[in-house]
């Protein structure tokens, strides 16, 4: 097999893996958007917050230690214990549920019925707030997250492809795990939405708030449920990205990468988020490899996704799987 083609296929595979992670973040957006019409810009910061909290709990950090030290003049840093990964994940999930409750109770309860753009701006405010709280709680230095996921090159694929084609493909174990987890998560969420009572209530709310209210669905509960689910998705995304590149501020920027994914797939469609994520992941890696790096000076990954989405939307404003936009006066 010619070298160039083999490289291209490898880039394609890595793009698919990156796309899965984009799709994972985009899923969190779709969940909240479908159920409450809120476009949650804070999703990326939620992932960062979840990852920070997970690391903090595992390391036994004292929350707000910097602030406490500054006010009281003490020198507290760590409790001195280490929590096992599984327990820490459960505890972090509890924190995310509490967060979901607070967000619903103190912010969006007061904003029901506002214009979508006002809600969107409120989530930008929420993103800033959460980012500040996360940094105050756990400190802003870059942390490594190790929950025992396998990392490094997958030797088996490398050897297998080397024997078959004469060129060993480099694929990270972590990416494979991430894809499997994402696939399980997606299937789980679809099953939840289709076959459970709460899932059905969730879809009812997404369909029509008033009608759902009138048959006895508690809007408040559903919204807290949806924000908790989004928190769970954020936690998973935070673990994957955190294990890949460390827990730091740039983690919250993946939310911005998820936006073009959503635009491609349509804001209201779960399969759309997956397909959009894969297209963006593969597209930006291939573009960088084939055109960006050789001809344009590299780092085209920063903007390619947005440009692709922009051009695409000009021809199909509702995205690939979105509902057709009908406007009336």
């Amino acid at each position: 097999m010619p070298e160039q083609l083999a490289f291209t296929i490898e880039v394609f595979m890595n793009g698919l893996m990156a796309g899965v992670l984009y799709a994972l973040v985009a899923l969190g957006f779709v969940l909240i958007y479908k159920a409450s019409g809120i476009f949650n810009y804070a999703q990326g910061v939620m992932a960062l917050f979840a990852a920070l909290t997970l690391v903090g709990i595992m390391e036994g950090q004292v929350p707000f230690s910097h602030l406490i030290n500054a006010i009281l003049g003490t020198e507290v840093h760590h409790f001195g214990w280490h929590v096992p990964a599984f327990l820490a994940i459960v505890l972090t999930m509890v924190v995310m549920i509490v967060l979901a409750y607070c967000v619903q109770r103190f912010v969006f309860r007061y904003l029901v019925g506002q214009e979508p753009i006002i809600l969107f701006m409120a989530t930008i405010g929420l993103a800033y707030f959460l980012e500040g709280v996360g940094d105050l709680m756990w400190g802003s230095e870059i942390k490594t997250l190790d929950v025992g996921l396998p990392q490094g090159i997958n030797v088996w694929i490398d050897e297998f492809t080397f024997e078959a084609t004469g060129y060993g493909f480099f694929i990270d174990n972590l990416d494979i795990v991430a894809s499997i987890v994402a696939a399980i998560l997606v299937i789980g969420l679809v099953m939840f939405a289709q076959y459970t009572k709460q899932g059905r209530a969730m879809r009812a709310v997404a369909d029509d708030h008033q009608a759902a209210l009138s048959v006895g669905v508690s809007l408040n509960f559903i919204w807290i449920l949806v924000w908790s689910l989004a928190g769970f998705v954020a936690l998973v995304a935070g673990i994957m990205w955190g294990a890949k590149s460390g827990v730091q501020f740039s983690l919250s920027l993946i939310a911005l990468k998820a936006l073009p994914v959503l635009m491609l797939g349509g804001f209201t469609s779960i399969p759309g988020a997956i397909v959009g994520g894969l297209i963006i992941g593969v597209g930006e890696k291939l573009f960088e490899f084939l055109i960006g790096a050789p001809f344009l000076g590299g780092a085209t990954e920063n903007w390619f996704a947005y440009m692709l989405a922009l051009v695409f939307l000009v021809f199909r404003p509702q995205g690939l799987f979105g509902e057709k936009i009908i406007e009336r006066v």
Partner: protein
Amino acid sequence: MFYREAGDFSTTYAEDQQTFPIKFDRYRYYVVLFVAIFVIPFMVNDYWVNSLFLPFLIYAIAAIGLNILVGYCGQVSLGTGGFMAVGAYACYKLMTAMPDVSMFIHILLAGVITAAVGALFGLPSLRIKGFYLAVATLAAQFFLVWLFNRVPWFYNYSASGQISAPERDTFGILITGPNTEAWATYMFCLIFTVFSALVARNLTRGSVGRKWMAIRDMDIAAEIIGVNPLRAKLTAFAVSSFFIGISGALFFSIYLGAVEVGEAFGIQKSFLVLFMIIIGGLGSIFGSFAGAAFLVLLPVLLKIVGVDWLGWPTDIVAHLQLVIVGGLIIIFLIAEPHGLAQLWRVAKEKLRLWPFPH
């Protein structure tokens, strides 16, 4: 007692149509202008100008620009940082290519160039609406920053990849570079701010502004009553980018002096200006000033209180600032979606009847 229209008769059409028809408003405006022109320049030093007045004046222009697009025309944009970068780099190229031309002309030209770029990126707004447009403007933000980072022509092939403003003067007074005087840079920015506010105010209350507002309220209905959406949206993008470009040019040449594009004009800048108009008030020129003043003052105040009085480390204060800004945005959206400008309007309504409200 002071603020009322009773007894304030207009005898000519010009008087009836002036910007501030109520006497108290008019005099207040004159007093503010008088203080800004004849009092402040004689009292300021470098610290005051660089930490308060310059950022306030420059961000006010950017906020006016974005307010025209978001507040008046209803097209949400997250590309402000990118457009400010266009203004800055256009100004830099003009300054270095034509050293003898006045800075006034360079900055205005930088605005015109940004307007053209803005109109180009505004084209998709004809098809894309709402959130989709907001995300589409992110394409402008990231693409423009990448462009200025990667194409050496824009930064004149300098080794560091930065641009830095050479010394330029206007009417013999030095206004860029390290050896400027505080009052000169202040006055230079003030002229642009007053000019922008005047132009924006008169545009928004004229037929152009009414077309923008019709598009904002419902674009299909506006189209049916005869507003051309193509022209209305593109003029909004162009005018808005013109102001944002001016503010970017001033930000680079007068305020910072040297700029690294990803740092100075990143996505954070877009959000900062957006927050200014949310807190100040969407669709209000006064709100743009109020929001800019608020978000320029807040970090300075927090720094004085947190670092200087309480002796906390700067990073904690920086994080607290995020929490406070984020919290304030949410509180404002819940309590007063129309921002500081609406508070001012309510206060004026109360003032008209004060001290006998019944």
